[in-house]
């Protein structure tokens, strides 16, 4: 236990030292050059801003969080469904994969205003944008994960007359789980960005709206506060995804730490 704590502690120190140096450097820079707050607010000013109205940031963060998690869920379900179809049929893959790539190379911000026109100032444009951004990594990882099963286990199951459905649930899905979690860890930060993009093009609440409002009025410290809040949320969500992964995949070799 103590060993693991020390190991974790040692991993955390170097980045924290670097982060502290950057924050300190910014503070000194802003004070020494007397930069106006609308150009670059001092880190202390951003911290003071966050501390002065925590309710405001928490309420807006909650809105963005709901949109991001909802969009991630929607994108994951679509990505997994399409991925399962493509893993089963090469024809489906040939038809659908180029379309999926087409969606992926389209800058979502370019089509986000269309969703505002279709769905109005509701939660739906944000959900759709977040889902569009997150479905692709889930899709490709599902295809790879469902297909790359151990050939001998597959033969064993077939020789025991396992149905395709049994092979799917007992071999393919467990085999795909590590790939799915890898996609989810990418997806959580993408879904936050998707929700913010959806809010930037039209919203009345959420951190994206806070940023839009503040940047129009050149209240740069509010923009930075919202960005800090979003970055924090991204880190926490990624950590949550990793923790769930460790719980769910305790049996998989990717979860065994190398020094044990």
């Amino acid at each position, binding site marked *: 236990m103590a060993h693991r704590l020390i190991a974790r502690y040692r*991993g955390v120190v*170097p*980045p924290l*030292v*670097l*982060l502290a140096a*950057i924050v300190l450097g910014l503070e000194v820079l802003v004070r020494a050059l007397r930069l106006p707050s*609308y*150009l*670059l607010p001092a880190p202390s000013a951003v911290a003071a801003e966050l501390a002065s109205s925590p309710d405001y940031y928490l309420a807006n963060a909650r809105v963005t969080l709901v949109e991001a998690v909802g969009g991630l869920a929607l994108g994951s379900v679509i990505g997994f469904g399409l991925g399962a179809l493509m893993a089963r049929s*090469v*024809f489906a*893959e*040939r*038809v*659908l*994969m*180029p*379309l999926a*790539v*087409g969606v*992926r*190379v*389209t*800058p*979502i*911000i*370019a*089509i986000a*205003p*269309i969703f505002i*026109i*279709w769905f109005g100032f509701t939660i739906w444009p944000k959900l759709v944008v977040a889902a569009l951004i997150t479905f692709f990594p889930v899709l*490709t990882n599902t*295809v790879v994960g469902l297909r790359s099963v151990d050939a001998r286990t597959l033969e064993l199951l077939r020789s025991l007359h396992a149905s395709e459905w049994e092979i799917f649930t007992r071999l393919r899905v467990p085999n795909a789980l590590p790939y799915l979690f890898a996609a989810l860890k990418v997806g959580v*930060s993408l879904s*936050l*960005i998707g929700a*913010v*993009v959806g809010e*930037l093009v039209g919203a009345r609440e959420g951190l*994206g709206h806070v*940023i839009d409002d503040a*940047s*129009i009025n*050149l209240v*740069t410290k509010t*923009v*930075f506060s*919202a*960005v800090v809040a*979003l*970055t924090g949320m*991204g*880190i926490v969500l*990624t950590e949550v995804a990793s923790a769930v992964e460790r719980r769910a995949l305790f049996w998989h070799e990717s979860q065994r730490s190398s020094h044990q």
Partner: protein
Amino acid sequence: MATGVRLLGPPLLGVAAIVLVWEAWTRVLAVPAFIMPAPSRIVLRFQDDALVLGGQLAWTLLEAGLGLGIGVLIGIVGATLMAHWLLAERALLPLAVVIKVMPTIALVPILITWIGYNLWPKVIVAAIATFFPVLINMVTGLRAVDTCALEFLQSVGANRAEIYRRLRWHAALPYLFSALKVAINLSLIGAIVGEWFGAEVGIGKVIRQTGLKMDMSGMFAAIVMLVVAGCALMVLVGWIERRVLFWHASTQPEGEGAGLQWLTG
């Protein structure tokens, strides 16, 4: 020829089916053009605007290209440091993750306040968007060397620079190309995001302005231009990869579905 039909047939079928359903839907329900223009309208508009859009696209490609170059350079240099020096990895990798998680789009207005309505905010956004996949893949690639070859080089007294040039760099190239296939689209998206909040030229500006005017067919024509450019760039990277990595297993054709590998990367 036959393989070309076999590979291109199904995706074209899928696209054709979607376009047909879309066209039928807008005609049967008489959907107004400002909500969803029919594909035929978009094609006509695309023909009219192609030259103008091409000129705007060239600017966006310039921004994206510069950003990609800077991002790739930062990624390679950072990965070289991290692969050789554990403390650099411990300190820099979490920072890189933080930059990746940070919504860059929120910082664009601030960047414009600092730098102005010129090329550079777009280049910076594109660079931030592209450095991360390159960094991660290069760190993995520079380490994924054959142990026997490494031991052999060490036994003949090769120094770290020689090992880097003759072994690590070649081992990392396949990883670099797979990162490039992701990064090339990210650089385009980064340039568009940079143009979103203030630009005088660029395809992102066209999309924004046509969107604000509810000129949906003009907007879709610009998006089509952009998607075509994105796909063409991906094909180009795949082609260069096959040229450069002709010696590597990942470029050898193998069995069913191999023809689509350049798409999924």
